[in-house]
């Protein structure tokens, strides 16, 4: 089988895909086949943690697509991530059925608690897996399209766009905190039991979710890599480097931007949908502006406009976060803040940029 040229020339991408293939197979094997006392055995906790990193990596790829290639610094991508998560969380809530604390066959516990008599209209259909799966793409995509279409058409760009994306996620966070919204308010959605009949707590389900995350990341990476290698991708870079010139050359800049922004939001939604069953909860805190900005810094550390760098940055920083918040909780924010400053001052092209420069000089 011959690889298409756009993939063949992407050496870093091939390495990434190879690594993903190795861990996609290797992690389940080490979890299932290695005996528990074997040094290479991976616990279900580790598998889930890795799966979480992969979801973050997919979010980072989505951010990199719009920031690195189109020059839009979105400080609200966590909103799309969280919306995807909520969509899938709603499906999981409906699957609880009579096993909830109040045993209501239709209403989730928090609605019974709030004395609601019937399901709000927007909860209908989420008992079907395929419907929820479609909504995971449609809801973030639709929001991104509407928001992007209006913003790009009126040529809101640069820091203004960053600020209103931040306002968007902030407004959504405030909205989801309200009990009246019907998404569980402060507590969010949790206590999930099973998906498609498989109990989520079982090791098998965790392995499946991990493999799905690996596949989603690989698929998301390939899709973005393909996208940026097409003519559309060239236009993206043109817009990033000189929006006015691209417009004068006859490209419908706002259409291109809205399209790619929507696609990126859908990727983020998928990442969120895979994230929720693995961590077992989704609450309005996921909309916090800090989360979006953290995703941006993953990309910045890895190297923007490289896609591979986004994955590297997301995994490295989240690994560091897990380790530091456990070992030295006081230091984590210092480290993250210092990282923001250092990377922007000293590493404008991130780790991947550093590697490329080494290669170029060698």
């Amino acid at each position: 089988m011959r690889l298409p040229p756009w993939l063949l020339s992407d050496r870093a991408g091939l390495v990434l895909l190879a690594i993903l293939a190795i861990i996609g197979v290797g992690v389940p094997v080490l979890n299932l086949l290695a005996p528990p006392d074997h040094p290479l055995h991976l616990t279900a906790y580790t598998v889930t943690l890795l799966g979480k990193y992969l979801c973050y990596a997919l979010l980072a790829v989505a951010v990199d697509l719009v920031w690195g290639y189109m020059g839009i610094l979105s400080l609200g991508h966590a909103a799309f991530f969280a919306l995807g998560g909520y969509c899938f969380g709603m499906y999981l809530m409906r699957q609880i059925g009579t096993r909830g604390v109040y045993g209501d066959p239709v209403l989730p516990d928090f609605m019974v608690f709030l004395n609601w008599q019937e399901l709000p209209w927007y909860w209908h259909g989420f008992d079907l897996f395929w419907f929820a799966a479609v909504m995971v793409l449609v809801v973030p995509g639709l929001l991104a399209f509407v928001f992007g279409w209006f913003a790009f058409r009126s040529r809101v760009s640069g820091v203004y766009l960053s600020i209103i994306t931040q306002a968007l996620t902030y407004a959504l966070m405030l909205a989801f905190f309200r009990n009246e919204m019907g998404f569980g308010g402060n507590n969010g959605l949790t206590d999930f039991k099973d998906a498609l009949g498989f109990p989520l707590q079982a090791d098998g389900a965790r392995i499946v979710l991990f493999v799905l995350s690996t596949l989603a990341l690989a698929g998301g990476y390939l899709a973005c890599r393909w996208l940026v290698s097409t003519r559309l991708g060239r236009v993206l870079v043109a817009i990033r480097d000189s929006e006015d010139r691209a417009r004068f050359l006859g490209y419908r800049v706002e259409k291109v931007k809205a399209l790619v922004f929507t696609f990126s939001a859908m990727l983020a939604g998928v990442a969120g949908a895979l994230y929720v069953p693995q961590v077992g909860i989704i609450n309005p805190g996921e909309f916090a502006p800090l989360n979006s900005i953290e995703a941006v810094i993953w990309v910045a550390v890895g190297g923007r406009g490289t896609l591979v760098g986004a994955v590297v940055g997301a995994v490295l920083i989240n690994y560091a976060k897990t380790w530091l918040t456990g070992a030295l909780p006081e230091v984590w924010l210092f480290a993250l803040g210092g990282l923001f400053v250092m990377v922007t001052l000293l590493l404008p092209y991130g780790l991947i940029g550093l590697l490329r420069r080494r290669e170029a000089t060698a």
Partner: protein
Amino acid sequence: MPSRTPSRAGFFALAFALLALFGASPARAADDDSVRTILAQLRDADFDGKTEMIEKLVALDHPRIATILKALSDSRLYYQEEGDRVVIGLGDAADIAIEDAVSGAALGQVGKRDLDRITANNRLRSLIEDRLASLGLASADPRQRKAAVEAFLRNPDPAGAERLRARLAVETDSGIKELLWLALALADLASDDATVRAKAATALGGRMETEIRGPLARMAAEDGDPAAKEAARIALARTEFRLQMLGWAETLFFGLSLGSVLILAAIGLAVTFGVMGVINMAHGELMMLGAYTTWLTQQWLPVNWSLPVAVPLAFLVAALVGIAIERGIIRFLYGRPLETLLATFGVSLILQQAVRSIFSPLNRSVATPDWMSGTILLGPLEVTLNRLVILGFCIAVFALLWLALQRTRLGLEVRAVAQNRAMARAMGVRSARVDALTFGLGSGIAGVAGVALSQLTNVGPNLGQSYIVDSFMVVVFGGVGNLWGTMVAGLSLGVANKLLEPWSGAVLAKILVLVFLILFIQKRPRGLFPQRGRAAEV
């Protein structure tokens, strides 16, 4: 029981005359004496005699009469055989403290058995009550007159109305006149004559006192006479209207108050972002530093003095940190706004964690000075003093900043660099120094805003975060680089928020305002008052 002898009365008269020579006013001394005389008769009189004596006492115009009559009514007026005087008992124990009825001088503790109570019956008591009311009305002290009318307002009666009418004819104090008029109109509402009722109702329209709204509402609902009923209804509608206006005024004040907070939070940003074009995500944390500075000054200084000291200190602390940020980070990133945004966000995380590590993650309570607590009446509107002070403070900060930018050399240089950096440099402006000072100015104002915020919200490591989105929205809404725009934007957003709140709830109001802003920026990306001309292109 020995009765009081004339010779003794003569002795007392002499004694008081002597006292008068040594300073007490002669009129007072003479009056004291006549009061004593009447009290002596009161003691021995039967109830009819007592009635007569009470009338005599009332006629005397002596400052102690009200106290004496009240004591008689409460059965606390005694005759003390030892000393042959009438005294007032304070308290109800077996041993009670007494004071001289006429002079009010404390006479120590005595056993109750050594005192003879001067009795009163219910007829006397109601007489006393009536006379006390008139006495209050006739008092030389306006406060007592006012209290007497207010007592009537709480508990109107026909007999009292006659007294009030008599007083109204001679009253000179305009405030009390007004109150008397009100009380009489209220009494007229209960009149048997329907025209009198209707007239009174019409006159009372628009008054917001609950004592008046109650009877008017009753009248509008159940008066037998249709004309009077209609008059009451119209009067009530006028009252409702005024109440509504007052409600609006209250909302407006709360809105302006919120707006002043927004302006304080945003105005420093208007300098760094608006004038310099630098996105400083650590702006909120500079406010937090200002708030913590306030807390620190309160550890050293009495609360009442801490704020005037905290304001310049907070300015200094925040300005120094701001200059450090500018020299250390931002100056390497000019022309790359998105990178600046990320780097300053990193700074904000570091500052937050630093405060958390140094001062603990818990909120610190900053005390409010006495001169800022409580409420004050602005016309019919009751407003909290701290919000009013902060509103004034906001205006002062705004005015100072405006003067600094328009009237000082630094301000001129700042504007020059903002408009055309290369040209300003060519003219000899040291642009690097101006950058640092401008950033320091904006940061210092953030610190000053923190002092104000410490009076309104909890002072904790997250103080700044909650304001950063809002303050950016204010600056962008007003138009970047336009201080007046920031002012207008802050006030209108504050008022809009408070107008929405009763209808939608606080959180939803905030969301709606945010959504409005997002839509507004789509429509007018350059804000309410965009910069025009060449400066806009830079």
